[in-house]
């Protein structure tokens, strides 16, 4: 049964990459999706990121009770955990909820109101027209959101450390700039790309194969979020295992 659904998913992805009927129309749709996914999610990602960084700093400081360990290490831990795990993964889980459910319900509603049938009757490649702009919009904007999230998390950590007195500004910056491995940023970007692909395609698949009415659209939206989150966590582990 799992193979049946996976096969359908692969066939849908294959159809998404068929040659576009008119690239100029696709281009406009891609820009529209970039605005919707990128700017539309910037607020929530910013708020979450600042607090993730702040909490990471405060909790790390709470656990480092030994005088033998320099306080500056808090900056290093906040940086690495933010770059490697917290920003790409938590942001993607949040985006799976926000962007994924929106994609699934949008496409699902189009399916149950016969708008997808109308596209097909016109001779338009419906998966390509509906999913490709969302996929490209996600792949371009989600890594950018992750970069913003990393920056804001570190800033949140810096502010919380200074405000709580857990770590001084100098110590935090010293920890931040010591032993930085640039490859961790590459890992974060690879994660963001993979997660963006998962969020957009899994949600689009759930929406595209919706059958029924309003209740089924809601179910598709829920399934899209649940399956995307599980797929993100599994691929997070696989990427970490392969690259680190």
């Amino acid at each position, binding site marked *: 049964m799992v193979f049946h659904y996976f096969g359908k998913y692969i066939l849908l992805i294959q159809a998404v990459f068929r040659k576009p009927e008119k690239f100029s*129309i696709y281009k406009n749709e891609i820009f529209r999706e970039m605005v919707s996914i990128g700017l539309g999610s910037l607020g929530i990602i910013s708020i979450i990121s600042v607090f993730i960084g702040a909490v990471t700093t405060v909790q790390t400081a709470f656990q480092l009770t030994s005088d033998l360990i320099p306080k500056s290490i808090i900056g290093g831990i906040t940086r690495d955990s933010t770059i490697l795990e917290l920003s790409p993964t938590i942001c993607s889980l949040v985006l799976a909820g926000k962007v994924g459910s929106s994609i699934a319900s949008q496409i699902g509603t189009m399916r149950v109101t*016969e*708008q997808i049938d*109308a596209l097909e009757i016109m001779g338009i490649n419906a998966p390509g027209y509906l999913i490709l702009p969302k996929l490209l919009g996600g792949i371009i904007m989600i890594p950018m959101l992750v970069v913003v999230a990393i920056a804001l998390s570190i800033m949140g950590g810096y502010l919380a450390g200074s405000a709580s007195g857990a770590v001084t500004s100098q110590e935090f910056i010293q920890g931040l700039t010591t032993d930085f491995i640039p490859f961790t940023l590459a890992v974060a970007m690879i994660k963001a790309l993979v997660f963006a692909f998962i969020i957009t395609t899994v949600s689009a698949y759930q929406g595209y194969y919706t059958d029924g009415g309003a209740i089924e659209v809601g179910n598709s939206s829920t399934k899209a979020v649940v399956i995307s989150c599980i797929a993100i966590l599994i691929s997070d582990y696989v990427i970490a295992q392969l690259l680190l």
Partner: protein
Amino acid sequence: MIEVKDVFKSFGDNEVLKGITADFKPGVTSLIIGSSGSGKTTLMKNMVGLHEPNSGKVFYDGRDFTSMDTEERIDIRKEIGMLFQGSALFDSMTVEKNIRFPLDMFTDQSKAEKLDRVNFVLERVNLAGKNHLYPAELSGGMMKRVGIARAIAMRPKYLFCDEPNSGLDPKSSIMIDELVAEITKEYEITTVIVTHDMNSVMGIGEHILFLHQGEKWWEGSKDEITSTDNKELNEFVFATKLMETLLKK
């Protein structure tokens, strides 16, 4: 002309179409009628390729549609217009964008040419000047008319209408029927309408196909439909009190 030859379709164990054969001629309004579950919508979906028949063929002017791959079908689909039961207008687009959409996708016309065509078809369906309204701002009848305008924007050779009168009041219903019939004659379109509305049958039914339990049970015109001794067809035709009363008079 559309030829349907011995089309069978089943969903699991449920055999919905049992060897339907029929011809639909250009310039003629053909109606597929039958009670719910008789297979009329399934037949239409098999004809336009939204479903694949288990066996049998559909030909568009001699071109075997059922044997074509996705790419080959696109050329025929550009010649097909379809009005859906719920209109299926793209709700994120205005009336003008909905109608212009296939033109944007498949033609290299200038903006002015496309706008001319949009305004022409809007005028044809009596909706001139409604270009900038969204589907949510339209009544049911207006949505159907925009659906027709979009369907004919590409000058189709074949027009399919799935329950064009559903949810409409009798006056709007007649307006839609007459519009479709007029367009069919005017542009020599092969028009196929799926309906169970007897007003449509008696109004525009030049060629009628009655399906019963997935089989072609009767074929004829509106003039013949009331004088047949086909039991199932009579049960369908005279199911409404209005029809019964009118015919008694």
